Protein backbone atom coordinates (compact mmCIF):
# COMPACT_ATOMS: atom_id res chain seq x y z
CA UNK A 1 0.00 0.00 0.00
CA UNK A 2 2.12 2.87 -1.20
CA UNK A 3 1.49 6.55 -0.88
CA UNK A 4 3.44 9.29 -2.56
CA UNK A 5 2.14 12.45 -0.86
CA UNK A 6 1.47 14.07 -4.24
CA UNK A 7 4.68 14.98 -6.04
CA UNK A 8 7.82 16.64 -4.82
CA UNK A 9 7.69 18.77 -1.73
CA UNK A 10 10.39 20.85 -0.22
CA UNK A 11 10.42 19.86 3.39
CA UNK A 12 12.49 21.09 6.29
CA UNK A 13 15.46 18.99 5.23
CA UNK A 14 17.17 22.00 3.74
CA UNK A 15 20.56 20.95 4.98
CA UNK A 16 20.30 17.73 3.04
CA UNK A 17 18.79 19.38 0.00
CA UNK A 18 20.91 18.95 -3.08
CA UNK A 19 21.10 22.09 -5.17
CA UNK A 20 20.65 20.47 -8.53
CA UNK A 21 18.63 17.32 -7.94
CA UNK A 22 15.79 15.96 -5.87
CA UNK A 23 16.34 13.68 -2.92
CA UNK A 24 14.24 10.52 -2.85
CA UNK A 25 13.22 9.44 0.61
CA UNK A 26 11.69 5.99 1.11
CA UNK A 27 10.14 4.47 4.16
CA UNK A 28 9.11 0.86 4.38
CA UNK A 29 6.90 -0.68 7.03
CA UNK A 30 5.01 -3.91 7.45
CA UNK A 31 1.63 -4.27 9.05
CA UNK A 32 1.62 -6.45 12.15
CA UNK A 33 -0.81 -8.87 10.53
CA UNK A 34 1.14 -9.30 7.30
CA UNK A 35 3.20 -12.42 7.97
CA UNK A 36 2.29 -15.82 9.41
CA UNK A 37 2.97 -14.85 13.01
CA UNK A 38 2.03 -11.47 14.33
CA UNK A 39 5.04 -9.17 14.25
CA UNK A 40 5.91 -7.20 17.30
CA UNK A 41 7.74 -4.25 15.85
CA UNK A 42 6.52 -3.03 12.49
CA UNK A 43 9.05 -0.25 12.09
CA UNK A 44 12.71 0.27 12.68
CA UNK A 45 14.17 -3.18 12.28
CA UNK A 46 17.14 -3.88 10.07
CA UNK A 47 15.18 -5.50 7.28
CA UNK A 48 12.97 -2.45 6.95
CA UNK A 49 16.00 -0.17 6.77
CA UNK A 50 17.68 -2.31 4.15
CA UNK A 51 14.57 -2.56 2.01
CA UNK A 52 14.04 1.18 2.25
CA UNK A 53 17.58 1.77 1.09
CA UNK A 54 17.13 -0.57 -1.87
CA UNK A 55 13.89 1.19 -2.80
CA UNK A 56 15.64 4.53 -2.61
CA UNK A 57 18.43 3.40 -4.91
CA UNK A 58 16.00 1.91 -7.38
CA UNK A 59 13.86 5.00 -7.59
CA UNK A 60 16.75 7.38 -7.77
CA UNK A 61 17.73 5.56 -10.90
CA UNK A 62 14.25 5.62 -12.33
CA UNK A 63 12.93 9.10 -11.47
CA UNK A 64 14.31 12.05 -13.44
CA UNK A 65 15.57 13.84 -10.34
CA UNK A 66 17.47 16.56 -12.18
CA UNK A 67 14.15 18.23 -12.99
CA UNK A 68 13.44 19.12 -9.35
CA UNK A 69 16.30 20.96 -7.73
CA UNK A 70 16.14 21.52 -3.99
CA UNK A 71 13.14 19.29 -3.44
CA UNK A 72 12.41 15.98 -1.84
CA UNK A 73 10.21 13.14 -3.02
CA UNK A 74 8.77 10.94 -0.28
CA UNK A 75 7.65 7.39 -0.91
CA UNK A 76 5.94 5.54 1.94
CA UNK A 77 5.14 1.88 1.43
CA UNK A 78 3.29 -0.38 3.80
CA UNK A 79 3.00 -4.11 3.23
CA UNK A 80 -0.39 -5.55 4.11
CA UNK A 81 0.22 -9.18 3.22
CA UNK A 82 3.70 -10.67 2.90
CA UNK A 83 4.06 -13.89 0.97
CA UNK A 84 7.54 -13.70 -0.46
CA UNK A 85 8.85 -10.99 -2.75
CA UNK A 86 8.23 -8.03 -0.43
CA UNK A 87 10.70 -5.80 -2.16
CA UNK A 88 9.23 -6.62 -5.57
CA UNK A 89 5.69 -5.86 -4.50
CA UNK A 90 6.86 -2.55 -3.04
CA UNK A 91 8.69 -1.57 -6.20
CA UNK A 92 5.75 -2.39 -8.45
CA UNK A 93 3.27 -0.57 -6.25
CA UNK A 94 5.52 2.47 -5.85
CA UNK A 95 6.00 2.67 -9.62
CA UNK A 96 2.25 3.00 -10.07
CA UNK A 97 2.04 5.54 -7.27
CA UNK A 98 4.81 7.70 -8.70
CA UNK A 99 3.20 7.53 -12.13
CA UNK A 100 -0.17 8.53 -10.71
CA UNK A 101 1.41 11.46 -8.89
CA UNK A 102 2.73 12.82 -12.19
CA UNK A 103 6.43 12.62 -11.37
CA UNK A 104 8.51 12.14 -14.53
CA UNK A 105 10.20 8.73 -14.69
CA UNK A 106 12.38 7.07 -17.25
CA UNK A 107 10.19 4.00 -17.51
CA UNK A 108 8.13 1.59 -15.44
CA UNK A 109 10.11 -0.35 -12.86
CA UNK A 110 9.03 -3.97 -12.65
CA UNK A 111 10.57 -6.30 -10.13
CA UNK A 112 10.45 -10.02 -9.60
CA UNK A 113 12.31 -12.73 -7.71
CA UNK A 114 13.64 -15.89 -9.30
CA UNK A 115 15.24 -19.00 -7.90
CA UNK A 116 16.32 -22.47 -8.74
CA UNK A 117 14.84 -25.70 -7.51
CA UNK A 118 17.04 -28.57 -8.73
CA UNK A 119 17.86 -27.03 -12.10
CA UNK A 120 14.37 -25.71 -12.79
CA UNK A 121 14.26 -21.92 -12.71
CA UNK A 122 11.27 -20.60 -10.76
CA UNK A 123 9.94 -17.07 -10.96
CA UNK A 124 8.17 -15.03 -8.27
CA UNK A 125 9.00 -17.11 -5.22
CA UNK A 126 6.47 -17.39 -2.44
CA UNK A 127 7.50 -17.34 1.17
CA UNK A 128 7.83 -21.14 1.73
CA UNK A 129 9.90 -21.31 -1.45
CA UNK A 130 12.15 -18.55 -0.18
CA UNK A 131 12.53 -20.18 3.20
CA UNK A 132 13.61 -23.45 1.58
CA UNK A 133 17.12 -22.08 1.35
CA UNK A 134 17.87 -22.15 -2.34
CA UNK A 135 19.57 -19.29 -4.18
CA UNK A 136 17.36 -16.24 -4.65
CA UNK A 137 17.77 -13.59 -7.30
CA UNK A 138 15.90 -10.28 -7.16
CA UNK A 139 15.72 -8.27 -10.34
CA UNK A 140 14.28 -4.80 -10.92
CA UNK A 141 14.01 -4.04 -14.61
CA UNK A 142 13.11 -1.06 -16.77
CA UNK A 143 11.25 -2.97 -19.50
CA UNK A 144 11.38 -0.64 -22.50
CA UNK A 145 15.13 -0.18 -22.51
CA UNK A 146 15.99 -3.46 -20.82
CA UNK A 147 18.14 -1.69 -18.25
CA UNK A 148 18.52 -3.25 -14.84
CA UNK A 149 17.85 -0.99 -11.86
CA UNK A 150 18.75 -3.47 -9.15
CA UNK A 151 20.08 -7.01 -9.10
CA UNK A 152 20.56 -8.84 -5.86
CA UNK A 153 21.62 -12.42 -5.23
CA UNK A 154 21.53 -14.23 -1.93
CA UNK A 155 23.14 -17.63 -1.35
CA UNK A 156 25.55 -19.02 -3.90
CA UNK A 157 24.67 -19.76 -7.44
CA UNK A 158 26.82 -21.41 -10.08
CA UNK A 159 27.77 -19.15 -12.95
CA UNK A 160 26.16 -21.42 -15.52
CA UNK A 161 22.83 -21.29 -13.78
CA UNK A 162 22.84 -17.49 -13.61
CA UNK A 163 21.63 -17.08 -17.19
CA UNK A 164 18.59 -19.28 -16.66
CA UNK A 165 17.56 -17.59 -13.44
CA UNK A 166 18.02 -14.15 -14.97
CA UNK A 167 15.92 -15.16 -17.95
CA UNK A 168 13.11 -16.38 -15.73
CA UNK A 169 13.10 -13.17 -13.68
CA UNK A 170 13.21 -11.07 -16.84
CA UNK A 171 10.19 -12.86 -18.28
CA UNK A 172 8.21 -12.41 -15.10
CA UNK A 173 9.05 -8.69 -15.11
CA UNK A 174 7.92 -8.30 -18.68
CA UNK A 175 4.65 -10.07 -17.93
CA UNK A 176 4.12 -7.72 -15.01
CA UNK A 177 4.87 -4.76 -17.23
CA UNK A 178 2.15 -5.87 -19.64
CA UNK A 179 -0.41 -6.05 -16.85
CA UNK A 180 0.56 -2.70 -15.30
CA UNK A 181 0.60 -1.04 -18.70
CA UNK A 182 -2.89 -2.25 -19.47
CA UNK A 183 -4.24 -0.93 -16.19
CA UNK A 184 -2.54 2.45 -16.60
CA UNK A 185 -3.81 2.89 -20.11
CA UNK A 186 -7.34 2.02 -19.16
CA UNK A 187 -7.29 4.54 -16.38
CA UNK A 188 -5.88 7.17 -18.75
CA UNK A 189 -8.63 6.45 -21.24
CA UNK A 190 -11.31 6.68 -18.59
CA UNK A 191 -10.10 9.93 -17.16
CA UNK A 192 -9.48 11.66 -20.48
CA UNK A 193 -12.96 10.65 -21.61
CA UNK A 194 -14.46 12.13 -18.46
CA UNK A 195 -12.49 15.31 -18.66
CA UNK A 196 -13.69 15.97 -22.17
CA UNK A 197 -11.56 18.05 -24.46
Amino acid at each position, binding site marked *: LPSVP*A*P*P*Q*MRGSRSKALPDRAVVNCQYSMATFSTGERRRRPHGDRQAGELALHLKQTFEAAI*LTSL*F*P*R*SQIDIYVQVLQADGGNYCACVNAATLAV*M*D*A*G*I*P*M*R*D*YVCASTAGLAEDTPLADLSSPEEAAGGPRLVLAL*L*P*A*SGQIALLQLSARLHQERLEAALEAAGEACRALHAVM*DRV*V*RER*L*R*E*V*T*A*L*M*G*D
Partner: protein
Amino acid sequence: MAAITMRLPVARRAVGPSAPRGGEKHLVAPGDTITTDTGYMRGHGTYVDEEKLIASVAGAVERVNKLVCVKALKARYNGEVGDIVVGRITEVQQKRWKVETNSRLDSVLLLSSVNLPGGELRRRSAEDELAMRDYLQEGDLISAEVQSVFSDGAVSLHTRSLKYGKLAQGVLVQVSPSLVKRQKTHFHDLPCGASVILGNNGFIWIYPTPEQKDEEAGGFTTNLEPVPLSDREVISRLRNCIVALVNQKLMLFDTSILYCYEASLPHQIKDILKPEVEEEIVLETRQKLLDLEG
Protein backbone atom coordinates in the same frame (compact mmCIF):
# COMPACT_ATOMS: atom_id res chain seq x y z
CA MET B 1 -34.53 3.86 18.85
CA ALA B 2 -32.83 6.11 16.33
CA ALA B 3 -32.63 4.66 12.84
CA ILE B 4 -29.15 4.11 11.45
CA THR B 5 -28.46 3.97 7.73
CA MET B 6 -25.70 1.73 6.49
CA ARG B 7 -24.26 1.99 3.01
CA LEU B 8 -22.01 -0.60 1.41
CA PRO B 9 -19.74 0.65 -1.35
CA VAL B 10 -19.72 -1.12 -4.69
CA ALA B 11 -17.32 -0.52 -7.54
CA ARG B 12 -18.90 2.05 -9.81
CA ARG B 13 -18.05 2.65 -13.42
CA ALA B 14 -17.73 6.34 -14.07
CA VAL B 15 -20.38 7.59 -16.48
CA GLY B 16 -18.73 9.73 -19.10
CA PRO B 17 -20.12 11.83 -21.93
CA SER B 18 -22.00 9.63 -24.38
CA ALA B 19 -20.36 10.97 -27.52
CA PRO B 20 -16.56 11.30 -27.37
CA ARG B 21 -15.65 14.73 -28.59
CA GLY B 22 -12.66 15.74 -30.60
CA GLY B 23 -10.19 13.36 -32.14
CA GLU B 24 -8.49 10.35 -30.63
CA LYS B 25 -5.88 11.36 -28.10
CA HIS B 26 -2.50 9.73 -28.13
CA LEU B 27 -2.15 8.33 -24.61
CA VAL B 28 1.30 7.36 -23.40
CA ALA B 29 2.96 5.89 -20.34
CA PRO B 30 6.56 6.38 -19.16
CA GLY B 31 8.97 4.57 -21.40
CA ASP B 32 6.81 4.81 -24.54
CA THR B 33 8.49 6.15 -27.61
CA ILE B 34 6.55 9.11 -28.91
CA THR B 35 8.44 9.60 -32.12
CA THR B 36 11.80 8.83 -33.64
CA ASP B 37 11.72 11.93 -35.81
CA THR B 38 14.48 14.29 -34.69
CA GLY B 39 12.70 17.33 -36.09
CA TYR B 40 10.63 17.84 -32.96
CA MET B 41 11.52 19.94 -29.95
CA ARG B 42 10.90 18.29 -26.65
CA GLY B 43 8.63 19.86 -24.02
CA HIS B 44 7.53 18.89 -20.52
CA GLY B 45 6.98 15.26 -19.77
CA THR B 46 9.46 13.92 -22.31
CA TYR B 47 13.14 13.10 -22.47
CA VAL B 48 15.53 12.15 -25.23
CA ASP B 49 17.34 8.84 -25.25
CA GLU B 50 19.45 7.85 -28.26
CA GLU B 51 17.59 10.07 -30.72
CA LYS B 52 14.21 8.79 -29.60
CA LEU B 53 11.71 11.01 -27.86
CA ILE B 54 10.37 9.07 -24.87
CA ALA B 55 7.52 9.97 -22.53
CA SER B 56 8.30 10.35 -18.84
CA VAL B 57 4.79 10.76 -17.42
CA ALA B 58 1.49 9.00 -18.05
CA GLY B 59 -0.83 11.27 -19.97
CA ALA B 60 -1.90 12.63 -23.34
CA VAL B 61 0.50 13.89 -25.98
CA GLU B 62 0.05 17.50 -27.01
CA ARG B 63 1.62 18.75 -30.17
CA VAL B 64 1.93 22.38 -31.13
CA ASN B 65 3.72 22.64 -34.48
CA LYS B 66 7.15 21.30 -33.67
CA LEU B 67 6.84 21.16 -29.90
CA VAL B 68 5.84 17.86 -28.34
CA CYS B 69 4.91 17.59 -24.69
CA VAL B 70 3.02 15.16 -22.51
CA LYS B 71 0.48 16.54 -20.12
CA ALA B 72 0.15 14.41 -16.99
CA LEU B 73 -3.28 13.70 -15.57
CA LYS B 74 -2.54 15.02 -12.14
CA ALA B 75 0.50 17.09 -11.33
CA ARG B 76 1.48 19.88 -9.02
CA TYR B 77 0.76 23.44 -10.00
CA ASN B 78 3.28 25.01 -12.37
CA GLY B 79 3.19 28.76 -11.99
CA GLU B 80 2.70 30.99 -15.01
CA VAL B 81 2.87 34.75 -15.01
CA GLY B 82 -0.56 36.30 -14.61
CA ASP B 83 -2.29 33.39 -12.90
CA ILE B 84 -4.51 34.00 -9.91
CA VAL B 85 -3.66 31.79 -6.95
CA VAL B 86 -5.07 31.28 -3.49
CA GLY B 87 -2.47 30.33 -0.93
CA ARG B 88 -1.80 29.92 2.75
CA ILE B 89 1.06 31.64 4.57
CA THR B 90 3.46 29.09 6.02
CA GLU B 91 6.39 31.25 7.16
CA VAL B 92 7.23 34.85 7.87
CA GLN B 93 10.81 35.54 6.85
CA GLN B 94 12.94 38.63 6.83
CA LYS B 95 11.48 40.55 3.93
CA ARG B 96 8.98 38.11 2.56
CA TRP B 97 6.33 35.57 3.31
CA LYS B 98 6.41 31.94 2.19
CA VAL B 99 3.09 30.89 0.76
CA GLU B 100 1.90 27.36 0.23
CA THR B 101 0.25 26.95 -3.12
CA ASN B 102 -0.16 23.45 -4.48
CA SER B 103 3.22 23.54 -6.22
CA ARG B 104 6.60 21.87 -5.98
CA LEU B 105 8.34 24.61 -4.08
CA ASP B 106 6.75 27.12 -1.77
CA SER B 107 5.80 30.41 -3.38
CA VAL B 108 7.22 33.71 -2.24
CA LEU B 109 5.40 36.95 -1.46
CA LEU B 110 7.87 39.80 -1.14
CA LEU B 111 7.24 42.70 1.19
CA SER B 112 7.69 45.03 -1.74
CA SER B 113 4.88 43.27 -3.57
CA VAL B 114 2.08 44.04 -1.16
CA ASN B 115 -0.03 47.12 -0.69
CA LEU B 116 0.69 48.72 2.65
CA PRO B 117 -1.71 51.14 4.31
CA GLY B 118 -0.65 54.69 3.73
CA GLY B 119 -0.39 54.82 -0.01
CA GLU B 120 1.11 53.09 -2.96
CA LEU B 121 4.56 54.57 -3.21
CA ARG B 122 5.77 54.39 0.36
CA ARG B 123 9.30 53.23 1.00
CA ARG B 124 9.49 50.03 2.94
CA SER B 125 11.25 50.89 6.16
CA ALA B 126 12.64 48.83 8.97
CA GLU B 127 9.42 49.24 10.94
CA ASP B 128 7.52 47.64 8.12
CA GLU B 129 9.71 44.60 8.38
CA LEU B 130 9.06 44.29 12.08
CA ALA B 131 5.35 44.79 11.57
CA MET B 132 5.08 42.12 8.89
CA ARG B 133 3.37 39.77 11.23
CA ASP B 134 0.64 42.29 11.88
CA TYR B 135 -0.38 42.17 8.24
CA LEU B 136 -0.11 38.49 7.43
CA GLN B 137 0.47 35.71 9.90
CA GLU B 138 1.13 32.00 9.50
CA GLY B 139 -2.08 30.28 8.53
CA ASP B 140 -3.72 33.24 6.77
CA LEU B 141 -5.24 32.72 3.35
CA ILE B 142 -4.52 35.17 0.59
CA SER B 143 -5.44 35.65 -3.02
CA ALA B 144 -2.64 36.91 -5.22
CA GLU B 145 -1.38 37.05 -8.76
CA VAL B 146 1.81 35.48 -10.05
CA GLN B 147 4.37 38.14 -10.80
CA SER B 148 7.28 36.01 -12.00
CA VAL B 149 8.75 32.54 -11.86
CA PHE B 150 12.27 31.84 -10.60
CA SER B 151 14.59 29.57 -12.52
CA ASP B 152 14.05 26.59 -10.21
CA GLY B 153 10.30 26.80 -10.56
CA ALA B 154 9.43 28.78 -7.43
CA VAL B 155 6.76 31.37 -8.00
CA SER B 156 6.80 34.99 -6.87
CA LEU B 157 3.43 36.54 -6.01
CA HIS B 158 2.08 40.05 -5.66
CA THR B 159 -1.09 41.56 -4.22
CA ARG B 160 -0.72 44.95 -5.74
CA SER B 161 -4.36 45.47 -6.52
CA LEU B 162 -7.31 46.02 -4.26
CA LYS B 163 -9.01 42.88 -5.40
CA TYR B 164 -6.23 40.68 -3.95
CA GLY B 165 -5.38 40.40 -0.30
CA LYS B 166 -6.24 38.47 2.83
CA LEU B 167 -9.34 36.31 2.64
CA ALA B 168 -11.80 36.49 5.50
CA GLN B 169 -14.79 34.21 5.99
CA GLY B 170 -15.49 31.43 3.57
CA VAL B 171 -14.77 27.85 2.61
CA LEU B 172 -11.64 26.53 0.89
CA VAL B 173 -11.81 23.54 -1.45
CA GLN B 174 -8.57 21.93 -2.60
CA VAL B 175 -8.69 20.26 -6.00
CA SER B 176 -6.20 19.21 -8.63
CA PRO B 177 -4.89 22.16 -10.67
CA SER B 178 -5.59 20.41 -13.94
CA LEU B 179 -9.33 20.68 -13.32
CA VAL B 180 -9.49 24.48 -13.18
CA LYS B 181 -10.21 25.92 -16.59
CA ARG B 182 -8.19 28.91 -17.71
CA GLN B 183 -10.43 31.90 -18.22
CA LYS B 184 -10.26 35.66 -18.54
CA THR B 185 -11.31 36.23 -14.97
CA HIS B 186 -11.26 33.97 -11.97
CA PHE B 187 -13.33 36.03 -9.59
CA HIS B 188 -16.99 35.21 -10.08
CA ASP B 189 -20.10 36.52 -8.36
CA LEU B 190 -22.63 33.76 -8.74
CA PRO B 191 -26.30 34.75 -8.93
CA CYS B 192 -27.19 32.24 -6.24
CA GLY B 193 -25.77 34.56 -3.62
CA ALA B 194 -22.13 33.65 -3.10
CA SER B 195 -18.86 34.52 -4.78
CA VAL B 196 -16.09 32.20 -5.76
CA ILE B 197 -12.40 32.62 -6.54
CA LEU B 198 -11.04 29.83 -8.77
CA GLY B 199 -7.32 29.74 -8.08
CA ASN B 200 -5.25 28.30 -10.90
CA ASN B 201 -3.36 26.26 -8.35
CA GLY B 202 -6.45 24.27 -7.48
CA PHE B 203 -7.45 26.14 -4.32
CA ILE B 204 -11.00 27.39 -4.61
CA TRP B 205 -12.39 29.92 -2.19
CA ILE B 206 -16.14 30.33 -1.71
CA TYR B 207 -17.34 33.31 0.28
CA PRO B 208 -20.51 35.35 0.79
CA THR B 209 -20.84 38.21 -1.67
CA PRO B 210 -19.95 41.45 0.08
CA GLU B 211 -22.79 43.97 0.05
CA GLN B 212 -20.86 46.94 -1.17
CA LYS B 213 -17.43 47.10 -2.70
CA ASP B 214 -15.72 49.20 -0.07
CA GLU B 215 -12.27 50.56 -0.73
CA GLU B 216 -10.20 49.02 2.03
CA ALA B 217 -6.68 50.08 2.79
CA GLY B 218 -4.79 47.46 0.87
CA GLY B 219 -7.11 44.54 1.52
CA PHE B 220 -5.78 43.54 4.91
CA THR B 221 -8.70 44.32 7.14
CA THR B 222 -10.91 41.31 7.63
CA ASN B 223 -14.64 41.32 7.97
CA LEU B 224 -15.55 39.08 10.87
CA GLU B 225 -19.27 39.70 11.18
CA PRO B 226 -21.40 36.58 11.55
CA VAL B 227 -22.59 35.20 8.23
CA PRO B 228 -26.38 34.65 7.97
CA LEU B 229 -27.70 31.08 7.76
CA SER B 230 -29.04 31.38 4.21
CA ASP B 231 -25.62 32.44 2.92
CA ARG B 232 -24.01 29.58 4.79
CA GLU B 233 -26.36 27.09 3.18
CA VAL B 234 -25.60 28.42 -0.27
CA ILE B 235 -21.89 28.15 0.42
CA SER B 236 -22.15 24.58 1.73
CA ARG B 237 -24.18 23.53 -1.27
CA LEU B 238 -21.64 25.10 -3.61
CA ARG B 239 -18.82 23.35 -1.84
CA ASN B 240 -20.52 19.97 -2.15
CA CYS B 241 -21.23 20.65 -5.82
CA ILE B 242 -17.59 21.40 -6.46
CA VAL B 243 -16.55 18.20 -4.72
CA ALA B 244 -19.06 16.28 -6.87
CA LEU B 245 -17.70 17.86 -10.06
CA VAL B 246 -14.16 17.01 -9.03
CA ASN B 247 -15.04 13.37 -8.32
CA GLN B 248 -16.57 13.06 -11.76
CA LYS B 249 -13.62 14.90 -13.29
CA LEU B 250 -15.50 17.73 -14.94
CA MET B 251 -13.59 20.96 -15.63
CA LEU B 252 -14.39 23.73 -13.15
CA PHE B 253 -15.49 27.12 -14.40
CA ASP B 254 -18.26 29.50 -13.43
CA THR B 255 -20.89 28.08 -15.78
CA SER B 256 -20.31 24.49 -14.78
CA ILE B 257 -20.48 25.32 -11.09
CA LEU B 258 -23.66 27.30 -11.60
CA TYR B 259 -25.39 24.54 -13.58
CA CYS B 260 -24.33 22.00 -11.00
CA TYR B 261 -25.77 24.16 -8.27
CA GLU B 262 -29.08 24.44 -10.08
CA ALA B 263 -29.17 20.71 -10.73
CA SER B 264 -28.58 19.99 -7.07
CA LEU B 265 -31.39 22.18 -5.73
CA PRO B 266 -33.94 19.34 -5.49
CA HIS B 267 -31.61 17.34 -3.25
CA GLN B 268 -30.59 17.98 0.32
CA ILE B 269 -27.15 19.46 0.80
CA LYS B 270 -25.65 16.41 2.48
CA ASP B 271 -27.10 14.04 -0.11
CA ILE B 272 -25.00 15.58 -2.85
CA LEU B 273 -21.99 13.67 -1.58
CA LYS B 274 -23.60 10.27 -2.18
CA PRO B 275 -22.20 8.66 -5.34
CA GLU B 276 -25.48 8.04 -7.13
CA VAL B 277 -26.75 11.56 -6.53
CA GLU B 278 -23.38 12.90 -7.62
CA GLU B 279 -23.55 11.04 -10.91
CA GLU B 280 -27.06 12.21 -11.58
CA ILE B 281 -26.26 15.85 -10.93
CA VAL B 282 -23.06 15.84 -12.95
CA LEU B 283 -24.75 14.09 -15.85
CA GLU B 284 -27.38 16.79 -15.89
CA THR B 285 -24.66 19.45 -15.76
CA ARG B 286 -22.83 17.87 -18.67
CA GLN B 287 -26.03 17.77 -20.66
CA LYS B 288 -26.74 21.45 -20.05
CA LEU B 289 -23.20 22.37 -21.00
CA LEU B 290 -23.48 20.42 -24.25
CA ASP B 291 -26.78 22.14 -24.99
CA LEU B 292 -25.13 25.46 -24.39
CA GLU B 293 -22.47 24.76 -26.96
CA GLY B 294 -24.61 23.01 -29.53
